[in-house]
């Protein structure tokens, strides 16, 4: 019986890809291990191999097709003695029904859409499509515009925005360079540095050995020596190996030297849970770094913030910890088409105005916050949604002004609950706006457990839109 070849999931977060090129044609015999096609994911172009021998019976998806969903049949293989005629008689799985029937990895898309929360399914769909309308990223802040009205906008992924920010700053200042694992020839483990090696050369785009502690220290020393390093950690999980250099060397030297020297540099990379990569690769370090005087800490949500804040980070004369998110990398947002667009630190963004409750979040937590706000609006509850964007310094005033207006606050963050930034915000609100509160502040955080691998448990370990909705109901006594 003819066997379908399905679009493979080539990374933990891949939901679709481009079928860049076929290396076989119909009628070719292939052996196990032969390369069938080149597939471009959001991270890299990868070769796709045959798992068993056979003949290519039919190619179902033409080369150059973009947006091919994981698990879509892309070709049909024939066994010995079969012919193309057998294909038509065989039942073909519909392309839009993902499932493990054809073998291969279970796609994360499936894990997400299979969830019992309709909202989550909708979110996954919006992510996969990346299109306008479906994406909460389309909500535009009215209260706090970061660009003049009427500015031309274009859709860009967070990944592209980060790359553009680095490229622009590297063009402007020859002392800016980027170092890290796989940033150069591999074009970035998550493709964030794609193209930088070609434009700036190996002197300024430097592949390091896998040695976080050492290269973070070399980066700090280079900053002492007058350069403006961008140190990429493949993920912030690995930066724990280097945290002494980030805190003791980078953050404290300006103070210890009485203002004589410091470390103007950026430590950046993906932070927080990706998808199904378990405990050691899924942690949000926002609260850890935000704890440290001498560091500035940024955790952007949208592409425009990613770009504007990274450019500010590179120019800042202090060490900046820039926490990105793998799941957000592929999401598209409107980014202003401006020659030199930056966003200042310490300024929150009000994504939507409302009078009933304040929801404060940042980074990927914003997906839950905005989704909850949409659903609350359907019930007639108007939430004000604030994206902190920078976690040190924090724009307390915007939060407090909002709480004084709504008298209720829910915080949303992905990190662990104990000693979280949410706890800190609650304390500040209590101290400075106690008389305005009509209910205790509720913190929606990740659960107090190491991240489990199992799909259902992972979902439970993260905070959810439903939890945000529940918290809002509590503080509004509904």
């Amino acid at each position: 019986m003819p066997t379908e070849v399905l679009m493979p999931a080539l990374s933990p977060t891949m939901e679709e890809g481009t079928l860049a090129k076929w290396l076989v044609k119909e009628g070719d015999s292939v052996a196990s291990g032969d390369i069938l096609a080149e597939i471009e994911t959001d991270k890299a172009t990868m070769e796709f191999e045959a798992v068993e021998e056979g003949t290519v019976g039919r190619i179902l998806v033409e080369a150059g097709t973009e947006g091919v969903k994981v698990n879509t049949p892309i070709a049909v293989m024939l066994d010995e003695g079969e012919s193309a005629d057998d294909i038509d008689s065989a039942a073909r799985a519909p392309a839009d029904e993902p499932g493990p029937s054809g073998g291969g990895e279970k796609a994360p898309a499936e894990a997400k859409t299979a969830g019992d929360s309709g909202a989550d399914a909708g979110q996954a769909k919006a992510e996969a499509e990346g299109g306008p309308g479906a994406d909460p990223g389309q909500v535009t802040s009215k209260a706090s515009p970061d660009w003049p009205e009427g500015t031309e906008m274009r859709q860009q992924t967070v990944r592209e925005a980060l790359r553009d920010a680095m490229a622009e700053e590297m063009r402007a200042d020859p002392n800016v360079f980027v170092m890290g694992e796989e940033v150069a020839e591999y074009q970035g483990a998550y493709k964030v540095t794609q193209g930088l090696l070609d434009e700036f050369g190996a002197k300024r785009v430097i592949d390091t050995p896998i040695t976080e502690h050492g290269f973070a220290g070399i980066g700090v020393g280079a900053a002492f020596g007058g350069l403006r390093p961008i140190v990429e950690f493949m993920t912030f999980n690995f930066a724990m190996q280097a945290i002494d250099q980030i805190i003791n060397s980078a953050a404290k030297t300006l103070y210890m030297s009485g203002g004589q020297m410091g470390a103007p540099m950026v430590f950046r990379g993906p932070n927080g849970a990706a998808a199904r990569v378990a405990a050691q690769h899924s942690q949000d370090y926002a609260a850890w770094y935000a704890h440290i005087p001498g560091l500035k800490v940024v955790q952007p949500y949208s592409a425009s913030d990613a770009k504007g804040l990274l450019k500010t980070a590179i120019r800042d004369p202090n060490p900046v910890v820039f926490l990105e998110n793998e799941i957000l990398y592929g999401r598209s947002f409107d980014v202003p088409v401006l020659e030199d667009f930056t966003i200042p630190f310490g300024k929150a963004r009000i994504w939507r105005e409302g009078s009933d409750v304040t929801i404060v979040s940042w980074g990927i937590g914003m997906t839950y916050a905005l989704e909850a706000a949409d659903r609350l609006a359907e019930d007639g509850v108007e939430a004000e949604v604030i994206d902190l964007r920078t976690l040190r310094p924090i724009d307390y005033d915007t939060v407090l002004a909002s709480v004084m207006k709504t008298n209720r606050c829910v915080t949303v963050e992905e990190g662990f609950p104990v000693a979280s930034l949410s706890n800190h915000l609650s304390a500040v609100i209590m101290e400075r706006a106690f008389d305005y509160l009509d209910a205790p502040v509720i913190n929606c955080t990740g659960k107090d457990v190491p991240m489990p691998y199992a799909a259902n448990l992972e979902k439970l370990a993260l905070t959810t839109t439903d939890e945000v909705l529940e918290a809002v109901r509590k503080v509004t006594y509904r």
Partner: protein
Amino acid sequence: MATRKSAAGAKPNVSADALKSYYRDMLLIRRFEEKAGQLYGMGLIGGFCHLYIGQEAVVVGLEAAAEEGDKRITTYRDHGHMLACGMNPDGVMAELTGREGGYSKGKGGSMHMFSKEKHFYGGHGIVGANVPLGAGLAFADKYLGNDRVTFTYFGDGAANQGQVYETFNMAALWHLPVIFVIENNQYAMGTAQKRSTSTPDLYTRGEAFGIPGEVVDGMDVLAVKAAGDKAVAHCRSGKGPYILEIKTYRYRGHSMSDPAKYRTREEVQKMREEKDAIERVRQMLLDEDHASEDDLKAIDKEIKEIVNQSAEFAKESPEPAVEELYSDIYAEDLPQGEAIETSDETEDA
């Protein structure tokens, strides 16, 4: 690549003036440290205070091999390095007493002093952590295309830290102009080298990375200078890093609160009597008629005055203003006049 022991016995060609200046510089460190010990005893210096007494020939010999613009970075036993590179004893002593006139305005203390002017990059308190920082300084020099060399000092204890080897690898891979100076004073705090280190020859520790190394008698300032010259020439010519293991000895405890149970009084006494680097140069000056007893007395007197003056300064300098608590946490200015006005306009629009 070669790892070797330096040739012993070769009579170095050194001028009377150079020899006298080594004597003077080493004596300054010793007298300064003795005074610091005294002030610590009086409660004027607090916290950790690690004295350099006994190791003077290491920094003085290597500073004699350095050129203007070369950089240096070290750990927390750092007073000697600062004095040897020309930092003002008043500022160093006032930092020890935590006063406004100190190099870090009293906010760094014994372990954290810096001088941009003298290219002294600290003063770091975490064992081994200054080693990648030193390589990073060398990385910057290479990137900027100048021919500077960075002296990165650390001890036999730090030589067992993992990040030191991560740094060796990258320094060799990228041909960074850095001299790794291992000041082997035989004890990592209170642990003798043979009890902490699987192979005793630290100068061979770069072999696996292709870094040449050399062991040097650190009680002989001329041997240190000669080895320094060689290492500097190697680095400056673009051949990458170099390791100097300098065998030295600290006469005082690890810090001021060292119970000294891990070695005998006799061992320390023997080193002082037989190996002392300052006494050795003093004898050399006299033997070769480069200086008379009176000349040396004049130097001793001059040093004593400098040190006493620094102690007076350190006592009289006021404590930092309370506003200093909240200053220097963040740098305000954007270097190179980099403008983000565009964005500000955007914000206001």
